[in-house]
């Protein structure tokens, strides 16, 4: 008996180890089966894609332009996904080399002064949380401050911030404008007043997960990098169908499109909701950026895209990092959503025009493998969509089933990559819904945006 008891005592930790090992093995297996399954699905989808392309060749052999378009769009989307597969390696290298650079400079950690700039108007509900989240960042308190700009707000936002001022004292600066001047002047004011070397542009309803904050700053150890865009997800994703769809869209747009751009260090839009800029890079171009005019009128929206454009134009690198988690609020009703989309489309058109003037000189590789194809796809897609969704059903009595199937197939391929990148993100089914929605609605939004491009009002919120 004694011997048995002794054995028991001895064997307990051993059993534990075996169990742990078994657990690990099981995790490994499950991971393998998960990714193996995804891989199989991906290969199957590519095979179906090949079959569909063959069918396109057959069905439209008399319409070579349609074939060209179909091949072009597919290639474009595929190469986006392929470029995005290189992203993990790319961002890892950026972070590791930042360490190397610090080691070379014999610095312990890279901790420059950081300033949050929050321009806003009438945001009394969100503002307290936003500012508190800024100060909660995992960063030395003495190296972090906030500039709040009340851009002609009329509600109690400023009072709330003044209350917070008592708590944070000198670390919180309040700029109070009685007249609404717009987002760009607000941001410029923020850059001018910022004490920090790194300026973080934050929307009033956005915040950065404090524990991931350092990852936003670290890439700046590379002197070439002038802007870092954080990964943003809607914090109100579960609210309704529209927000769920947008959650899927945000994930795709950040983790695939921006990630693909980031592999080549040229993110074209460091989104306004949560991006960090190097002040020394922004200051020289600030006046140009502020004074930008399109067709004789100042450009109200698209400040983020325009600023990133200017940074690329002045030979800076811009990246996206999924190591920083930011949250923002997305429109929860169709009206606001369409207004936002209209604004984004307008901004895209105008900035694509500006970028096309220099990009082929500054970044020829990106220009011809990505930027101009993107421009072409974006310009053509609405027309093809109208042809498939309206013209063909009405005139040729052909339902757009085939068109939608092609779009859904591409969405499925993107979804496979989506699930590769984030196993836990649960919004992927809504990507299909988004695709259908996109095909039906957003093409028309494009035409609407072009038609009303001279209307420079902000129109949401």
């Amino acid at each position: 008996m004694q011997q048995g008891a002794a054995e028991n005592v001895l064997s307990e930790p051993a059993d534990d180890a075996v169990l742990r090992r078994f657990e690990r093995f099981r995790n490994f297996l499950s991971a393998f089966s998960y990714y193996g399954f995804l891989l199989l699905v991906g290969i199957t989808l590519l095979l179906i894609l090949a079959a569909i392309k063959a069918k396109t060749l057959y069905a439209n052999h008399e319409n070579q332009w349609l074939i060209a378009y179909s091949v072009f769009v597919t290639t474009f989307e595929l190469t986006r996904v392929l470029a995005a597969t290189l992203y993990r390696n790319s961002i890892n290298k950026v972070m590791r080399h930042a360490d190397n650079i610090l080691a070379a400079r014999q610095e312990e950690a890279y901790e420059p002064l950081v300033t949050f700039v929050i321009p806003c108007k009438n945001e009394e509900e969100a503002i307290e949380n936003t500012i508190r989240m800024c100060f909660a960042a995992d960063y030395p308190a003495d190296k972090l401050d906030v500039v709040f700009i009340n851009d002609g707000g009329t509600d109690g936002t400023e009072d709330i911030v003044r209350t917070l001022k008592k708590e944070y004292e000198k670390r919180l600066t309040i700029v109070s404008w009685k007249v609404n001047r717009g987002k760009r002047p607000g941001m410029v004011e923020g850059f001018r007043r910022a004490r920090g070397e790194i300026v973080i542009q934050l929307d009033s309803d956005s915040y950065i997960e404090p524990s991931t904050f350092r990852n936003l700053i670290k890439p700046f150890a590379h002197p070439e990098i002038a802007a870092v865009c954080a990964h943003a997800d809607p914090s109100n994703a579960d609210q309704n169908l529209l927000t769920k769809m947008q959650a899927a869209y945000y994930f795709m747009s950040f983790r695939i499109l921006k990630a693909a751009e980031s592999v080549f260090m040229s993110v074209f839009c460091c989104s306004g909701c949560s991006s960090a800029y190097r002040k020394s890079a922004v200051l020289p171009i600030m006046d140009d950026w502020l004074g930008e005019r399109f067709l004789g009128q100042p450009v109200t929206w698209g400040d983020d895209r325009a600023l990133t454009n200017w940074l690329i134009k002045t030979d800076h690198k811009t990246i996206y990092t999924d190591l920083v988690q930011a949250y923002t609020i997305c429109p929860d009703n169709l009206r606001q959503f369409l207004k936002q989309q209209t604004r984004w489309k307008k901004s895209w058109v105008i900035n694509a025009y500006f970028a096309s003037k220099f990009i082929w000189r500054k970044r020829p590789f990106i220009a011809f493998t990505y930027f101009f194809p993107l421009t072409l796809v974006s310009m053509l897609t609405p027309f093809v969509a109208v042809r498939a969704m309206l013209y063909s059903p009405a005139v040729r009595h052909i339902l757009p089933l085939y068109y939608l199937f092609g779009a859904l197939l591409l969405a499925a391929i993107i979804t496979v990559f989506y699930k590769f990148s984030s196993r836990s993100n649960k919004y992927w089914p809504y990507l299909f819904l988004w695709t259908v929605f996109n095909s039906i609605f957003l093409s028309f939004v494009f035409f609407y945006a072009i038609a009303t491009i001279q209307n420079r009002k902000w129109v949401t919120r």
Partner: protein
Amino acid sequence: MKLWNVPSGAHHPSYLQLGARWLYTRRPHGLRTRMYVHRAAYVALSLAVCGLIYGGAYWLYSYNLDNTRTIGNFFETYRVRYDYNRYIGESRPDAVRDAMFTDRVSAAPMPAGYATSVPVLLYHRVATDKDVYNVTPGDFKHQMFALKKAGYTTVSADDYANFIAGKKRLPAKSVFITFDDGTKDSYYPVDPVLSALGFRATEFVITKYNIEDFAGSHYYLSAIELHAMQRSGHWDLEPHTDIGHSYYAISSNGTKGEFYPNKLWLSASHRMETDAEYAARVYNDMATAKREVEQFTGKPATLFAFPFADIGENDSSNYHNAPNVLTAATKRLFKAAMMLYYPGRDRSQEYYNSNQFYAYRIQLTQGLWSNGQGLVAFLGQGDAKPLPYNDRLATNSGWEYAWGKGDVQNGTLTIGSSGTDKTGAGAVLDGSSGWSDYTMTARVTLNQGSSYGLLARLQGADYRIGCYFGANYFSVTRSMGSAFTTLQESDLDGLAVNQPQTVGVRMHGHTIQCLLNGEVLTEVTDPAMPPSGGIGFSVYDATHPSSLTIQDISVVAS
């Protein structure tokens, strides 16, 4: 950038070594280097993946248009193999094993020797919709199974042409399978069956629809599908027509008719075609079809199939000389042309070295020989019959009825007038057309009617000669085309009607002898007589129903 240091005078390292050294050298990567690496990776990945996808797409596209059916047929081939193995009686596991792991299905051992004659089969569409020219996929499969099981092999178009010309021997039990019109339904349901059984077939294509109108139709095969057929290795493509498969105005009042046997109405000049215009038009159509098929396949087209198998022979034409013009034109361009077999022709197969220009194809129609057994039996009957030939008439060994009706039962062949043929009937023995010098005798009873005949030297509609017996006369009458000539006629008293008579004919060269009870009644020599031909019987009465029974047919070479 200097990649390596080579001391002067030192041995120069290999480029492989240099490459490895470059790869493994630790160097402070800037973002720029990383960007270049990523660009290269991006370009390589994109080229690889897009290349695979578009390469695959083009492969599918160039192989076939109807991907789903093509992919389906890949699996269908295995299913057909399995079905066939079950059909020939293998157990289920064996059938699965053989279908999966053997290239060819097993068949009855190939019969020894060479074929004297080859049957030619004609199919149109293999489909289920109600159309007399459609054979259902199930029937087609069973017909092919039955052929395979009976040991048949299939022949190519060129082999057929060479066989007819006496330039190539074919194995005994060869069959030439043809499809007309180049429809999708003559390819997709057929291909896996051919593929599984190791059979081949010939498709007669309408070049306008199949080649010129690129993929323009859901009914006709496209050029790309024809390419797939060619590549499959078990299809031959031959011309059917170019634009001649449609109906055109053939008279001033706008009546529409077939392209080939008719002169067309020229509405612009308000007149009918002249002879020369007609001849030029039909020749041009054949020549165009031939040229396009040859350009497509890259080899000479040897065979031609007339649209609707009609050259205007049976008063179906508004131009009496059409058959001659068409035959002349076809002979200038092709080695053989395809027509239709009709019951009562002296042979259902085409013979080695016969130089028979028109192949009379056995047409498979809806519901005919559903399980394939009838087809095999019919083809067996059509085989050239050796002499001596004694027919006890227990089963039908090849009697076909040219007109009237007939039946083989209980040792008796009965022929007689029918509802449609009120004047009489005729029976012809399939497979007898190779006989040249022989004596044929039979016990014959004229039950009803005015006369009966023993026919010999049957050569389709071209020639036949016979000894005709009536109540008080007998005659030797020859028929060439539609011209009947009585060569000799004599009174013959005492031919008992309703009493069995032993009558016969003896053929020798150009000579025919009529026999009654073993005695020679007469002897006639006709220089126009072909050296060989089939045998048959006929019965006739101009006004009343007629009926003849025949027993104990015996043919002995002499």
